[in-house]
């Protein structure tokens, strides 16, 4: 094991102890299946808001988004801004109505609104695919922070991280997950803010930071209207607008955030929790934007750099040394490492573990409710599931974490990339049925089925074709057919899929039989009144 300074180990161990203690004590409050599934609907606004932040924002945020800023340049700040702005949008679009309805699982709304219990299967399948990919990504993220900062061997990192998440999810279900996620949100936000402030101080404040970044990379602050864009992927306004919208509506429709609306005390708490989430996440993202912008400069002028240093080459060396992920995964860590402050690094390690663990736990809670209650009890009519809901939910949690652990031992690059696909496919396949189901009386059962199936298959095909045939998943998958040029149109993460999903849903709804009036009245009209 390489040398690592005491504050890094100390802070990391303290973090692990803290979440184990929170998990252990929260199990004493667990009295029923409702407590396990939705924390007894007793979570307050601050705790739920912070839990929303840490659950929604995955290692892809902490590692991936600063890396995108590093590569794509300043225009990517707007994609990050749109993610935060998507949070308040969800307040009145889905959160308030869903909390008024107070379901238990993510699939409840679909089954009731469209009056079709079988929808629990298709909603569950799409969600399970997303869960496996995200849990794997989160386990890899945990290990990557432990490896790159605390120098813990990768295999030890994935095992330790998975066991700790398993402990608190099994002990306290949604209660433990909520309290731990709130603590984790606080920690990851503080970690990013401390790192960003240290960078700004080093570079001489905001103006000094701007000037230093511009001197290091003259194209960094450019937009598509400037003669030279920072990167091909931010080279046109269509691309910038695409990045802006690609993750914008995720907060309103993703299962792991939607179920958090069910855990709050009431509709007022649900609304206020989004305020707390937006507050913490906004601060967190501002910090990540600064770190991402300064990454190249920090790496090239830090202890690993020097005269004529190249950040990409340095990061490729990192990756060669650690052998996990891709070189961009290390840009954020390397930028903070360049500060040469073990306390900042220790807090960053704990913050990185926090963001990864909270996302893994959040997804485990979504799927354990779906598989135990929806599939086991309601669809398969299992006596065991009915009589032992908490035990079965715990077993399902352990299985999903073990599956993630096994895949994470030697994670194929494609699996990690596919988590980005999963995010968009869930919005495009299940989002229209959720949003339009609430706000459009004409939304039909056939449209729900069609959109869920067609968008999952079409989007997988499009993503794979763009990535494997055209060369990058951010290239529009029909570029070669329509334009004869694989790079003609940049549509990040197939941003077209979301409008196409909504359009398909609307067209099928207009030509198919409406849902029974009683269900529409109850799950559309009444839920959206006075949200």
């Amino acid at each position, binding site marked *: 094991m390489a040398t690592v300074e005491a504050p890094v180990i100390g802070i990391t161990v303290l973090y692990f102890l803290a979440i184990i203690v929170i998990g252990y004590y929260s199990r004493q409050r667990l009295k029923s299946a409702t407590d396990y599934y939705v924390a007894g609907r007793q979570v307050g606004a601050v705790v739920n808001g912070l839990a929303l932040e840490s659950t929604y924002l995955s290692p892809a945020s902490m590692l991936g988004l600063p890396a995108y800023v590093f590569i794509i340049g300043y225009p990517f700040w707007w994609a990050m801004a749109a993610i935060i*702005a998507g949070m308040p949008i969800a307040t009145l679009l889905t959160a308030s109505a869903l909390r008024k309805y107070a379901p238990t699982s993510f699939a409840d709304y679909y089954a009731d609104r469209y009056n079709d219990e079988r929808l629990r299967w298709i909603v569950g399948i799409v969600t399970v695919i997303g869960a496996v990919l995200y849990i794997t990504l989160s386990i890899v993220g945990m290990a990557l922070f432990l490896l790159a900062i605390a120098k813990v061997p990768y295999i030890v990192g994935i095992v330790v991280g998975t066991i700790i998440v398993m402990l608190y999810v099994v002990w306290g279900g949604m209660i433990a997950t909520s309290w731990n996620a709130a603590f984790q949100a606080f920690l990851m936000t503080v970690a990013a803010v401390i790192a960003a402030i240290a960078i700004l101080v080093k570079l001489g404040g905001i103006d000094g930071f701007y000037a230093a970044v511009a001197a290091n990379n003259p194209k960094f602050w450019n937009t598509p209207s400037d003669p030279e864009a920072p990167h091909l992927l931010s080279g046109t306004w269509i691309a910038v607008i695409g990045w802006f919208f690609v993750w914008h509506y995720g907060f309103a429709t993703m299962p792991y955030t939607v179920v958090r609306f069910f855990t709050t005390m009431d509709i007022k708490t649900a609304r206020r929790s989004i305020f707390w989430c937006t507050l913490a996440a906004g601060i967190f993202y501002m910090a990540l934007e600064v770190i991402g912008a300064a990454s190249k400069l920090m790496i090239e002028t830090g202890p690993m750099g020097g005269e004529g240093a190249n950040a990409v080459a340095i990061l490729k060396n990192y990756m060669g040394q650690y052998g996990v992920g891709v070189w961009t995964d290390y840009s954020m860590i390397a930028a903070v490492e360049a500060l040469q402050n073990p306390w900042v690094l220790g807090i960053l390690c704990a913050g990185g573990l926090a963001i990864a663990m909270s996302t893994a736990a959040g997804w485990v809670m979504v799927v354990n409710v779906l598989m135990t209650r929806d599939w086991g009890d309601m669809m398969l009519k299992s006596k065991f599931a009915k009589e032992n809901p908490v035990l079965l939910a715990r077993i399902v949690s352990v299985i999903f974490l073990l599956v993630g652990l096994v895949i994470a031992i030697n994670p194929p690059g494609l699996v990690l990339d596919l988590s980005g696909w999963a995010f968009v496919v869930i919005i495009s396949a299940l989002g229209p049925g959720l949003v339009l189901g609430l706000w459009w009386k004409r939304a039909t059962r056939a449209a729900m089925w069609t959109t869920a199936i067609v968008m999952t298959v079409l989007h997988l095909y499009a993503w794979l074709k763009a990535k494997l045939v055209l060369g990058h998943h951010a290239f529009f998958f029909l570029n070669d057919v329509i334009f004869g040029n694989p790079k003609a149109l940049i549509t990040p993460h197939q941003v077209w899929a979301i409008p196409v999903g909504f359009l398909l849903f609307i067209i099928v709804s207009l030509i198919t039989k409406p849902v029974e009036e009683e269900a529409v009245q109850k799950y559309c009209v009444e839920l959206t009144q006075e949200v």
Partner: protein
Amino acid sequence: MPWPPKVFWVGAILYYGFTALCWIAEATSGINHVVGLPFWYAAFLGSFVIPLVMSILYFYFPEKAEEARGGA
């Protein structure tokens, strides 16, 4: 037909309008080249202040309406 409350559209116009104005100013006046300015309008306002104002609008006005109706 159900329709989101007016305050939803106020927040949406505030955010999308602000973003559009920033992009227009970048494309026409190059404000992204004023030292330090992108931090203030894209990071501080775009990623933090304006979304936060939206989230306040989205709980304050519905709560006011509930109070006026005599509800919770």
